[in-house]
């Protein structure tokens, strides 16, 4: 589950302060335009902006002034339609019979609908706070609509497994999910910035809860926590996963944090929680099933050293990035891969235009060491596949009909941490976790010692120093 504070922040935007201050603008009044094929073709032809964490932070620290907020809104408006168009085109490139599947078709429809709601805004700039309120509503609607994409898509692909190879599915999903991370991030970031901006605060100045929240959130820039402490996230994930273990198995493994527990980096708490929850789930289950629950799982937090020239480079980065958008960047280039990632990486086409953020920002490496007996050689090859091939027919039918397959209890957790999407134990944890880690230049590598245990290395890149 999300930590309490993070949950309040995330859901609180919608439940408490958000809708009240939006007044009476409801989703029924959102303007839409018809999306034509030529629109999609035109948008998909424009190059994709390679997203960096610095982009998300460049509008300043909250509370944003109205001008900065409008800057953020227009930035978002510049890049979102193109990204959606790329997704639609990718989907349309799949075999007809796959896209005809009702689940996949629903996702396709969602994307087209979202694009249709964005197009009217894309034609002009956002010039006032009022416009931004409307725009933010649209964004919120977009985020809500797409929150269950992964599970629906997964179901769709399972049903259509006869018509498409596992390899193609893996390839498509790798690309699609990575792009999705970016798109959602942009939208959520703007929404979060909106709700912590000055005009918004003025509007709801009499809200006492909001004042308290504002006081706490001075490390947050939108969804990014600049003082994220991985040790805290580890402890909270340990608690959650431990509870479920105790419920299901009767025992609860412990975690021993070594290295530098006081480390903080600038990163997105939701992502880190998802990654760590998935990895700890694996470790805990393996440890318990090997009978080694007395041995603590060792988690090492190792901050990478930062030098001065890195922060200098970071300041210069945003300008250089924007000048480089004349090259065509493929869909694959939206994630940066760092060298700590092991084999079985998805094929990522190298683009000279993207400067990997990994080169210039300090980060942290988290190593999770367990004594759970390791991963058997047969399963090792399938580690990074999207849960496609490890099921037999019965299990698949079970999942397709919506049942909660074997090992259900632990798999339910992924529902909460993933921001509402229920993965229902479809084996998406590792590849998706890696997608999240790699998105900003980090990675996940797994080393298994069959007969002893497993070591997992999560490397994350942060934003560096922001003033």
């Amino acid at each position, binding site marked *: 589950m999300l930590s309490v504070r993070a949950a309040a922040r995330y859901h609180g935007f919608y439940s408490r302060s958000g809708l009240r201050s939006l007044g009476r603008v409801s989703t029924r009044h959102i303007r839409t335009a018809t999306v034509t094929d030529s629109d999609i073709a035109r948008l998909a032809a424009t190059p994709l902006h390679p997203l960096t964490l610095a982009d998300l932070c460049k509008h300043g620290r909250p509370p944003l002034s109205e001008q900065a907020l409008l800057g953020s809104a227009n930035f978002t408006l510049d890049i979102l339609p193109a990204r959606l168009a790329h997704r639609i085109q990718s989907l349309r490139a799949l075999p007809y019979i796959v896209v005809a599947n009702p689940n996949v078709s629903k996702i396709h429809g969602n994307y087209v609908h979202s694009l249709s709601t964005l197009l009217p805004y894309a034609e002009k700039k956002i010039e006032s706070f009022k416009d931004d309120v409307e725009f933010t509503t649209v964004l919120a609607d977009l985020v809500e609509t797409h929150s269950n994409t992964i599970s629906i898509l997964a179901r769709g692909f399972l049903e259509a497994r006869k018509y498409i190879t596992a390899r193609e599915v893996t390839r498509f999903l790798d690309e699609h999910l990575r792009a999705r991370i970016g798109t959602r991030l942009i939208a959520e970031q703007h929404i979060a910035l909106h709700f912590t901006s000055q005009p918004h605060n003025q509007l709801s100045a009499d809200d006492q809860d909001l004042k308290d929240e504002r006081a706490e959130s001075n490390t947050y820039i939108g969804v990014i926590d600049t003082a994220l402490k991985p040790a805290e996230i580890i402890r909270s994930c340990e608690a959650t996963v431990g509870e479920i273990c105790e419920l299901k198995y009767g025992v609860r493994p412990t975690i021993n944090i070594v290295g530098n527990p006081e480390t903080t980096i600038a990163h997105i708490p939701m992502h880190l929680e998802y990654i760590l929850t998935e990895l700890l789930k694996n470790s805990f289950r393996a440890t318990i099933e090997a009978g080694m629950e007395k041995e603590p799982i060792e988690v090492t937090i*190792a901050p990478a050293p930062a030098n001065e020239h890195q922060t200098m480079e970071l300041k210069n980065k945003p300008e250089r990035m924007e000048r480089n958008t004349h090259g065509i960047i493929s869909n694959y280039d939206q994630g940066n891969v760092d060298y700590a990632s*092991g084999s079985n990486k998805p094929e990522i086409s190298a683009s000279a235009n993207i400067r990997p953020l990994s080169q210039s920002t300090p980060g942290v*490496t988290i190593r999770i060491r367990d004594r759970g007996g*390791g991963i058997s050689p047969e399963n090792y090859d399938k580690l990074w596949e999207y849960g496609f091939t490890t099921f037999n027919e019965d299990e698949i039918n079970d999942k397709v009909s919506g049942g909660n397959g074997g090992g259900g209890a632990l798999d339910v957790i992924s529902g909460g941490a993933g921001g509402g999407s229920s993965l229902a134990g479809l084996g998406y944890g590792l590849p998706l976790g890696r997608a999240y880690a790699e998105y900003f230049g980090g990675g996940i590598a797994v080393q298994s*010692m069959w*007969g*002893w245990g497993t*070591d997992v290395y999560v490397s994350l890149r942060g934003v560096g120093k922001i003033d």
Partner: protein
Amino acid sequence: MRLYIRSCPRGRWCKAGPLPSRQWKCGGIRHASNDTNNDNNNNNNNNNNNNNTPPWRSSNVLDEWVQREARPISLRQLTFFGRTLTESRLLDSANYVRLELPTRIAHRLRNMQTLPYSALSNPHIKHVYELYYHAFELLRKVSHIATLRDNDRFCDVLKMCLKDHLSVIPRLAQGILEIQDSVSADECDRFMTTLLRSRISRRVIAEQHLALTETFHSPWHFPGKKSSVSPEDDFVGEIFLKCNAKEVVEKCAARATELTARAYGRHVTIPKVVLQGHLDTTFPYTPSHLQYIIGELLRNSIQAVVEQVGSSNPPPIEVLICEAAQHVILRISDRGGGVDRDILPYIWSFAKGPRRSRRLHNLGKVPRLAGTMEELQLPPSHPDSVEEGSSGEKFGSSLATLSSRPPDLRLGMGLPMSRIYAEYWAGSLELHSLEGYGCDVFLHLSRLGNKNEVLSTRASMDAV
């Protein structure tokens, strides 16, 4: 007159006359057993005096040998073969070696010949090329080995070749670093990897045969003795059937500690090496390879920790030994600060990286070390100076040179070389760096010995 079918020096199955005359008929063409095939004529023709490139030689002979496929072997085959040593088996082994060596050298010569002209003009590459060609000429002219005397002569030739080629690795590495203008870095890496793999393979089969010969001639060996496996038979030639991982690690740790202490001074506390896991694991392997790999890895770890932490209480290096049915996995974990970000992408490369010029400089110092056998030996008081059973040291293993070089001579080759050695018997070597904290290195070794040696295939060679 009976005609025998035999394998002639050209590697073909020829009809042979009665033994004394040794006349061969390759496809109807008569040739004597030591036909040099016009080679000597051409050697002196194109004598380029002031040119750096090697003299031109007719490529007919080389073509024939390049055509042959190398026959890879596995550790198990080597072991089983050597267990019952009879005269005929020894001679079979000799003939296998006699044909395999020129074949493999020929493949590598062809590799080198297809490098750009400017690359081969580099003095180091040229030196290696000449060495190889000379060895090739020597070995291909060896006729069929039919008696023990022939075998002895052949063994002398082998020993000489092994000794002469001690300087190959450092010179090759230097050459690679210098020819970056004409050959891309990736190609250099591939070339170096191929050459080194082949070199390991040739030395393995040569040293194995020499060791078998020695066993055969040793006073306590009875020709044709029936007992194939007795518990004391831990060694089959070069292969130690019961390599105990724990002992190897401890020995390498002791040696690495000694070397580091000598380099950094006695006041520096050297980190301890702590072992855990399945400590009784044994498996068949070539001890010289294992000692090299583990030695290099431990050296890296110890040096990193010493440089990171200095003389205060250094964190120990943890070595985990894990045994599975088919693999032995060693994990070496240190807290030496990890690998620097700017060299992390290049740690497996021979040719790339920001520290090239320093490497070049250091490599220049190593050939002198390999020049004389005296410099190789550690002082007699040193416990490692007499290797029990590892006859590779006696035959002038170049690994010994590299392992006992002073630790401040950073060559930048330990990791890629170790990986080639690990992969030779179908193992692997991987590294994970926790930047700012330490490194974990994973060494996978195949335990059953039934995997064939990893050579570069004909296909990849022909693709040039």
